[in-house]
């Protein structure tokens, strides 16, 4: 009888984490931040059709980095979860926290039980009903199911440390214009410049009707990025 080689659980987990991290680092990063009128998400994405940032529900947005097919599967599951929940209860009962927990369960499950972990990092953002912005939430989920509740700004992807360092810190939530300029500069780094065509930007914005999610198109983005 063949006995499998013994591998320490620490080693297994470390290998899986390394594998996932490597996969995530291959893609481009994204920055999400709170601004004075909601939450904006700015991703480096040269494709105008394969989105990294999407709408989940009236006040909830989704963003993912890493392997496209994997985070897109999670995005669709999120839309389904939210629409089913809103249908069977009420639209106000759909919330980001419960969705983030569901995502954490799946990511954790896949990380420990499947052959390979998901090579993704995702963000679930929600803006509160309140105009003050105090109820705005951003949940950052890692490949192993770790959930981090972020307040003002969050970076997803490979070089998070250097991008975070480059981000300006604001005392109070900046305007969309200020926040976006800081995010784009941080994503680009000192040696590159990013133009509107290299970016995918969307926002959950108050005063945008029931569905607060909107994409910021190239024309508007060019204007926003000007000084």
């Amino acid at each position, binding site marked *: 009888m063949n006995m499998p080689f013994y591998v320490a659980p620490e080693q297994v987990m470390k290998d899986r984490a390394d594998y996932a991290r490597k996969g995530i680092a291959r893609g481009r990063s994204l920055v999400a931040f709170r601004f004075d009128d909601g939450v904006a998400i700015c991703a480096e994405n040269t494709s105008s059709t394969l989105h990294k940032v999407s709408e989940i529900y009236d006040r909830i947005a989704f963003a993912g980095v890493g392997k496209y097919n994997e985070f897109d599967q999670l995005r669709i599951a999120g*839309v*389904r979860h939210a629409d089913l929940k809103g249908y069977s209860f009420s639209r106000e009962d759909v919330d980001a926290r419960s969705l983030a927990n569901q995502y954490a369960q799946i990511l954790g499950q896949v990380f420990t039980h499947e052959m390979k972990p998901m090579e993704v990092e995702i963000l679930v953002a929600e803006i509160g009903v309140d105009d003050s912005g105090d109820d705005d939430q951003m949940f950052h989920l890692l490949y192993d199911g770790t959930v981090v509740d972020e307040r003002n700004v969050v970076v997803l992807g490979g070089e998070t440390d250097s991008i975070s360092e480059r981000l300006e810190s604001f005392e109070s939530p900046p305007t969309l214009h200020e926040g976006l300029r800081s995010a784009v500069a941080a994503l680009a780094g000192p040696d590159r410049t990013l133009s509107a065509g290299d970016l995918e930007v969307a926002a959950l914005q108050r005063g945008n009707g029931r569905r607060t999610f909107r994409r910021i198109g190239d024309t508007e983005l060019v204007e926003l990025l000007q000084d």
Partner: protein
Amino acid sequence: MNLPIFLPQNDPGPDFAELMRRSGFHREIKFDGVVPVESFRHGTTCVAIRYADGVLLAGDRRATSGNLISHRSIEKVFPADRHSGVAIAGAAGPAVEMVKLFQLQLEHYEKVEGTSLSLEGKANQLGQMIRNNLPAAMQGLAVVPIFAGFDLARGTGRLFEYDVTGGRYEETQHASTGSGSLHAGTVVKLGYTESMNETEVTDLAIRALFEASEEDSATGGPDTIRGIYPIVALITADGYTRVDDAELAERTVALIDSRRPPRAG
């Protein structure tokens, strides 16, 4: 409620009704016989009219249960999405549920696929939902909506009528549904011109519903005491907008004044 994740071969795609079925939401209620007409609420008269900038949808506010008025301010005209709307007549409960599912279906498709359905696709979707309701319709719970929208691809307003079998019929000028549809439809037909503007088409719709309410007991007329007026929505390239009550009140009063017989002496 858990996260609905499917294997590729079982994936319901962008179809919300199919998703509900696969998630165990679909509870079919079976019963025999006909539901007596006085035991549920009935929505009545709606009209749709094409005009220069798009299409108008309007409906009265009365719901009846048999010969009783069961609701004075029910809404029968709803936005389906940004550029389309639906007006319902028939059994109010199933109709409102159908609209809710239809709205969700369009939004769900848009979010999953990243693009909206074509206007034609939306009209077909609604037709399928009406067809699925056929067994209930045979038991008395018929739902007969009108679907109207602005077709962004063609740059024009379009409207669709249905029958209980889910049959879908596109109309080029106007459509009406419900118990007062005969009278309302005739008024629209006589007053219709190709190039009506927003004001003219709104006046025509108010007049059509007013005349229907005079001839059909199940159609509610304007209620100036409580301030209840028909719902009128305009769908243009800019999207779905509901005409506000203040404006409707003003136009209704003008219409009533014009109908008042001249005082003797």
